[in-house]
């Protein structure tokens, strides 16, 4: 897969795992696929002692834990993270970390959940995207990191990113990377339509979309029909709070609020006027569209600039980055799409060392800078966002623009309070069915929000949640 490391696993990612063949088999054998996995999945509740949470960990305990020979397992799909882990092992030679990539996105979570349910085989530290944190908090699979000193890290992070890992008093994970949203666009195509400045407001954007389509035949951007992450990012920018979770049994589901419908209607109109395309994203057709000018832009996240360089190499120098268009002139707000954190599992037998690993990878100066400049994960750490070696980087692909600096500025404008429900897998998969079909067919997206809402509420109630 050609995706950048911080890319939210595109919705499509999830289904490719287990594949049964349409080969002859006896009627008896049937269902066995589901059954054997059932075997793996069920069983005991998450066992393991979640360490002593009686009080804060003392320096002595930390010293002792870090100087005792310990083996840790770390599940992540960040490529080459072994390099950062090597720095950790260098600093703490007694600790031996095994990095395992068990798959990206949903596949990773499936395996993680299976291991947790099975009561053995789960890693000590695991990569978890922000929106999936609550789904692991619910079954008490994550370790609260406050007693380990995680609270002290809060100031080192952009506020909204910290709120993602610590919506309440507990700290569930250490932020690794984020995806504040901006606008990547083809300067040459917009110029051909007489547009020299990136559209500042959504009204301007609609006007520009028409001009671009008329003058060049390109779509000003593509709205991935089944890309819930992008749409939710737009909601986030508009200040809409579609989800909420109190940490126990109450969820808030409000995807069809009047504000959400306004956003939906805006896109519906552009799509119905054939000014925005709705191709499914992260597949070959879409990659080609980015490379050959079918799309003159992409409203996307901070992990995208580097991703795009790999996808649309031939158009180097023609792209520029700008903030998202705004709903009202003069505003400066953005949303987030994607990004991950590293969480310590409650079942870890070495919680102190595990916490130190999660912390080190994302906080050690050298390690954090490496993540940002070698794996191109967009950093949530204030120290990196202020470091000239990072923000002053000029990107040739973007005509020498300091893209990192732009996104660092955007990052400060992301709405700080955005929550999720503990079943985002289901939320995304029903998005494909209720919203994706409508968007692809150029239907009324606002009406589809109602259907999506109903499905989500029904599921939540069936699962025993109280829906607010």
């Amino acid at each position, binding site marked *: 897969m050609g995706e950048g490391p911080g890319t939210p696993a595109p919705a499509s990612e999830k289904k490719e795992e287990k594949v049964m063949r*349409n080969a*002859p*088999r006896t009627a008896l054998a049937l269902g066995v696929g589901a059954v054997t996995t059932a075997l793996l999945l069920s069983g005991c509740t998450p066992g393991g002692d979640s360490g002593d949470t009686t009080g804060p960990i003392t320096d002595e305990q930390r010293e002792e834990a870090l100087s005792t020979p310990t083996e840790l397992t770390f599940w992540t799909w960040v490529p080459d993270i072994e390099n950062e882990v090597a720095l950790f092992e260098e600093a703490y030679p007694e600790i031996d970390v095994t990095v395992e990539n068990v798959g990206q996105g949903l596949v990773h979570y499936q395996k993680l*959940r299976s291991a947790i349910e099975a009561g053995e085989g789960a890693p000590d530290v695991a990569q978890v995207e922000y929106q999936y944190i609550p789904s692991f908090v619910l*079954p008490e699979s994550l370790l609260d990191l406050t007693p380990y000193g995680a609270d002290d890290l809060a100031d080192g992070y952009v506020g909204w990113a910290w709120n993602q890992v610590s919506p309440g008093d507990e700290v569930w994970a250490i932020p690794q990377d984020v995806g504040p949203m901006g606008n990547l666009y083809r300067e040459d195509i917009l110029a051909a339509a007489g547009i020299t400045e990136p559209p500042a407001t959504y009204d301007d954007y609609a006007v520009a979309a028409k001009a671009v389509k008329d003058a060049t035949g390109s779509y000003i951007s593509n709205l991935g029909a089944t890309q819930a992450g992008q749409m939710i990012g737009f909601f986030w920018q508009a200040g809409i709070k579609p989800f909420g979770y109190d940490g126990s049994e109450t969820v808030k589901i409000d995807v069809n609020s009047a504000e959400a419908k306004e956003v939906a209607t805006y896109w519906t109109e552009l799509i119905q006027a054939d000014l925005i395309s709705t191709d499914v994203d992260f597949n070959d*057709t879409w990659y080609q569209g980015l490379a050959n000018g079918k799309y003159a832009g992409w409203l996307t996240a901070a992990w995208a600039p580097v991703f795009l360089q790999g996808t649309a190499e031939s158009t180097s120098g023609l792209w520029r980055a700008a903030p998202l268009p705004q709903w009202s002139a003069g505003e400066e707000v953005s949303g987030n799409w994607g990004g991950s954190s590293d969480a310590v599992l409650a079942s870890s037998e070495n919680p102190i060392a595990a916490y130190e690993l999660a912390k080190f990878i994302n906080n050690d100066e050298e390690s954090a800078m490496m993540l940002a400049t070698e794996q191109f994960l967009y950093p949530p750490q204030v120290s990196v966002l202020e470091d000239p070696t990072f923000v002053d980087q000029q990107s040739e692909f973007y005509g020498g623009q300091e893209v990192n600096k732009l996104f660092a500025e955007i990052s400060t404008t992301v709405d700080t309070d955005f929550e999720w429900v503990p079943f985002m897998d289901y939320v995304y998969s029903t998005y494909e069915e209720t919203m994706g*079909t409508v968007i692809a067919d150029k239907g009324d997206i606002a009406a589809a929000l109602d259907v999506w809402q109903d499905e989500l509420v029904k599921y939540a109630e069936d699962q025993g949640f109280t829906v607010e």
Partner: protein
Amino acid sequence: MSNSPALTVERPSAAPPPKRRASTTKRKQHLAAYLFLLPFFVVFITMLVVPLVYSGYLSLFESKLIGGEVFTGLGNYVRAITDPLFLEGLGRVGLFFIVQVPIMLGLALFFALALDSFRARGSKAIRLLIYMPYAVPAVVATLMWGYLYGPDFGPIAQISRAVGLGTPDFLSAENMLGSMMNIVTWEFVGYNMIIMYAALRSIPTELYEAAEIDGAGQFRLAWSIKIPAIRPAILLTIIFSVIGSFQLFAEPSLLSIIAPNVVINSYTPNFYAYNLAFVNQELNYAASIAFLLGIVIAVVSYIVQLGAQRRERRERGLS
């Protein structure tokens, strides 16, 4: 192909009463047979029977994110038979079976007969070529077809545009099932052909000679001798196809990456069960869907077999 009953009647009286010694050797033989079968049974029980029973057990519970597992009896089954998504998926694979299987088996039979009649040089190579798609893993095949079907850069669409026919949308909601039928047909024609061809080769050639003397041409030969002779093999391919169609998984699972808005999570029952278990985290419900699907397949297979037997009996009765 009727047996003469007169021959079998004589046998029992001709057999001498078994002697003691023979029975000890026999017991030894039995023991050896069981020993040889043991590895199979160990695997069969641990890998098939136990999981099946366990899954059946699971399907009687309901697990919720809040509140955990509760016994519901047949609640999941009641839910399944009233679940429009499951029924829709079942209807979809039913349609798939009715449309695709006759085409696939018709083609397979045609190729098998053609190869059987045409025993010249080169027939081996052709046989291999027709069989080859089966050797391509379903995953690769579907990815390949996904590219071929592509609306922008797929070769089919490009050629179609070049000759002015517009862009065919193989991946739209209306055409998706047809596109899958095409993939599956391409993949499994060769497989079914080989089964039928092997059966054809085992027909004694005297029958052909006799038919030729009676003045039968190739078509008459195929219709009156070959096809009736390989009927059991054809039945076998039909049963395989029932199972294959109803368990359709790889194709929807891969095409859903390209067209997630068309190939929804409940597109086929098997795919639905998978998504229920791993996306919706409704493992118990998934288990009951898998069981129901198994029952449906067993019933359809039985009906097919029954139909074939009845037909055979009728024909025997006539002759």
